[in-house]
């Protein structure tokens, strides 16, 4: 089991973002989480990524009980176990694509040359190797997201988390990113995707979890359409 959430509650003041949510994700799963705005799906993603802590309940990812980890422990957990893709890419503007991708490995102490070699391999696999020296500002949206995916894969994470990965892309770029996620899942990468986009969910995920009012409202298995 890669992810196990059991009775997770999250409250921000009086507002309940998660209300006893439970969920399990096995290795190799591709899970899409959908739901209306404010239903708690981004909070769910933050819990799994170790970016936020539950008010109560258990969050276990790759054998780690995140509630027991301090801030440094959470950082090390993220570094080793999780890769994240964001709607707005979150690339560092001052670094070229190659250095953005190499960054997670360098934080673990991997020498710059070795980290860059691996980053170049990833960029090559994702089809943006020729843009390795470009800065984020000079890349298209699709290219930026590919670079972001490469960065997320840099430390070979057990779990890839994607938060609206096509939300800021045009349809063509969105299609490319979807294909990329499908390819990754097909080679065994576990995926957890939060999205509003039914097309993305149905194309990339094998399970669909619908969240409403901080709980799992419905769960279904999807046929891969790719």
């Amino acid at each position, binding site marked *: 089991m890669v992810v196990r959430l059991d009775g997770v509650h999250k409250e921000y003041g009086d507002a309940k973002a998660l209300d006893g949510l439970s969920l399990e994700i096995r290795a190799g799963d591709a899970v899409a989480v959908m739901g209306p705005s404010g239903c708690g799906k981004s909070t769910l993603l933050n819990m799994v990524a170790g970016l*936020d802590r539950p008010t109560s309940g258990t969050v276990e990812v790759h054998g780690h009980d995140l509630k027991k980890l301090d801030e440094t422990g959470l950082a090390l957990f993220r570094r080793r176990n999780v890769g994240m893709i964001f709607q707005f890419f979150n690339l560092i503007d001052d670094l070229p694509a190659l250095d953005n991708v190499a960054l997670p490995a*360098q934080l673990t*102490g991997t020498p710059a040359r070795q980290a860059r070699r691996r980053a170049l391999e990833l960029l090559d696999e994702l089809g943006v190797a020729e843009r390795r020296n470009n800065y984020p500002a000079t890349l298209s949206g699709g290219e930026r997201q590919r670079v972001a995916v490469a960065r997320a894969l840099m430390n070979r994470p057990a779990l890839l988390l994607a938060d609206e990965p096509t939300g800021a892309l045009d349809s063509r770029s969105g299609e490319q990113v979807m294909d990329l996620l499908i390819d990754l899942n097909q080679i065994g990468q576990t995926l957890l995707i939060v999205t509003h986009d039914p097309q993305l969910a149905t194309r990339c995920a094998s399970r669909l979890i619908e969240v409403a009012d901080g709980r799992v409202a419905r769960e279904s298995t999807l046929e891969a359409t790719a």
Partner: protein
Amino acid sequence: MSAVWRASRAAVKRRRLQTFVIGLVVFCSTTTVLLALALLSAASGPFDKAYAAQRGAHAVAAFDTTKVSREQLARTARQPGVEAAAGPFGQAVVDIPKDWLWMAGGTLTVVGRADQAGPVDRIELLEGHWATAPGEIVVNWSVQGSPDPELLGTKLETPGGATLTVVGFAASMSKSASAWVSPEQMAALHPASAQMLYRFTDSSTEARLSASLARATTGLPKESLTGAQTYLTLKQAFSARADSYLPFITLFGILGLLVSALLVGNVVSGAVVSGYRHIGVLKALGFTPNQVVAVYLTMLSVPAVVGCVLGTLAGNALAGPILKVAFSGIEVGRASVGGISPWVSVACLVGMPALVLLAALVPALRAHRLPAAEAISAGGAPRTGRGLRVQRILGATRLPRPVSLGLGQPFARPSRTLLTMAAIVLGVTTVTLSTGLTSTMVAYGKVGREDGGARIHVTTGGAGNDRTPPRLSDPQIEKRLRSLPGAEGVRARALSQANMTGQTQPVFADFYRGDDSSYEHTIVKGRAPATAGEIVAGPAFLSQRGLKLGDRVTLELNGRKITATVVGQLIEGDARALEATWESFAQLAPDARATEYTVRLASGADARAYAEAVAALDPGLHASVLDSGNAATATVITFSTVFTVLLTLVASLGVFNTVLLNTRERRRDLGMLKSIGMTPRQVVVMTVTSVAGLGAVGGLLGIPLGIVAHRLVVDHVGVVDFPAHMKDVWHAPQLAAMLLAGVAIAVLGALVPARSAARMTIASALHTE
């Protein structure tokens, strides 16, 4: 206007921390500047005011009446350039006994004047009445307050057999005489000199005063002018103590101003740059460019005005005690010191907010020019082109990634980096200057104490202090003191007021015999006096009288005269005092005896036991252990510490502000870095490294500036002439420590925002555009 005010108020509320930082910076800077201005104004203002009130003489001239007639002198008053003149008045030197009134004995320059009024030198009568009849004398009182009226009636026997009775005390800012008698009484004293008091149309400089005096005395017989004293000399003496503090207080004031200007510029630029979206929104809402500028200027005026008012209050509270210290022991006459001229507070209250607004104007005008659409898009658009090459190079190094990322950050905003670095440079300059001054002053404080032994001050009883006179003779006392256990050397001293040719005011002559080992450390130029006719003095005494090594002066005491040569300069000394050998004293006063003894004890000797042994020796001897502290050293070190703390705080606030702005601007980047596994410790390392590099460079630049500033200060302390070994205080370990000061300032300023960045909630930063 209400829209502008509302927008400004909202901006202040949104930037509470930055508003506080600006207020604090302005507060510290205003306090520093006010202290410097207060001292500057106190050094000259009160003297000028009191001098003008008495129509003080620009020159007090003494003439040899055997060479020039009264009529010839009277004609000098009508010469070109003479605005007003008084005299000629008869002038004589009268010997006074030891401990007459408050004086140590010696001579008194007495002038015969019919009244205290007149066109020049309107003497202020403090007690009693003016000397109008024979046998009456009025004595000059040169310090603040007034003498005890009970002293009226004190008698003085003159060598000619006449008895003078003190009928009044008066104050002359011109210091035209030590005492006054009626012209009739003066005639009875058979004066050999005459005094003329002049006010000139041009009295701005010493050279012009000399030229005016030369023009006034043109046509008089050669060498009839025996001496002249200008008011600039008196003014210099008045402000001598304050002058010694002025160089470094002024320098600290300038440093404070520079740091404030830089920091305000940095803070305001940051506020404008980080507020581009805000500016765009304001313009989109219909604010005119001028209204946008007004919003930003108003936003900054609030902390600037509050900081300035509080700084002015704090400066005024601090300046009073500081001025008291700076002017203690000075003959201020009627000049009122200790108060702070109102213009100083007004200058601070107007100048500091003006400085803030000036610093704010440049970035505010950028906001003025910025088109609304560009401003809105600039708020979220990625940066390009800045320092990118540096980031790439650093990324390829073997440095830990948080360190290389931190080192690259300053290149992203070069102008902000430069302003921050300038603040650090000035902070390091201050620390270096302060450390150097402290080292110099500590070395100065140890002068004469190099052997580590205590010093015992032994005084004799007598009429002047209502104590029993010693039964032992002067040579016996010296011999016994030397024979007591622990004594390594005994130095006997006699103090006398002597007349120096050409000077209306007496000089304090200290005559010494015995142990002169202290001269080894206190003589900075020339040598110690070794025989009769050799004198040494401090730099203030020599410079105020235009004397240099090798010059000859004539000293007069008890009607006896000796010609003495200046053979050495002391490291420091009273502006009115000189030192000479006992042999000189023996020629001037053959029967004189020492009144004080300084005993140098061996290192480790029991000072208290020695003092008790002295008391047992003779009840007429009073021994005390000399304090090892030095007031000037303590004062300068205290001043330096206060200014250093203030300016280091201000420089650290500059760094704090920069790091705060950087972390806010890079909030998204920080969130992303944390999301990919950057630990809180790595965030702190990266953030602190981003300014620690600046700190190191700031240290490298600030240290030489501090060394130059230190040299400037110690070379311009008029009352002390520091020898080379006291100025060469910089050694490798100290310089290395100074280099760390830059890093320390940077780390100090960066630590709080860095820790705050490390604790930042990253989820919200990552999920918003």
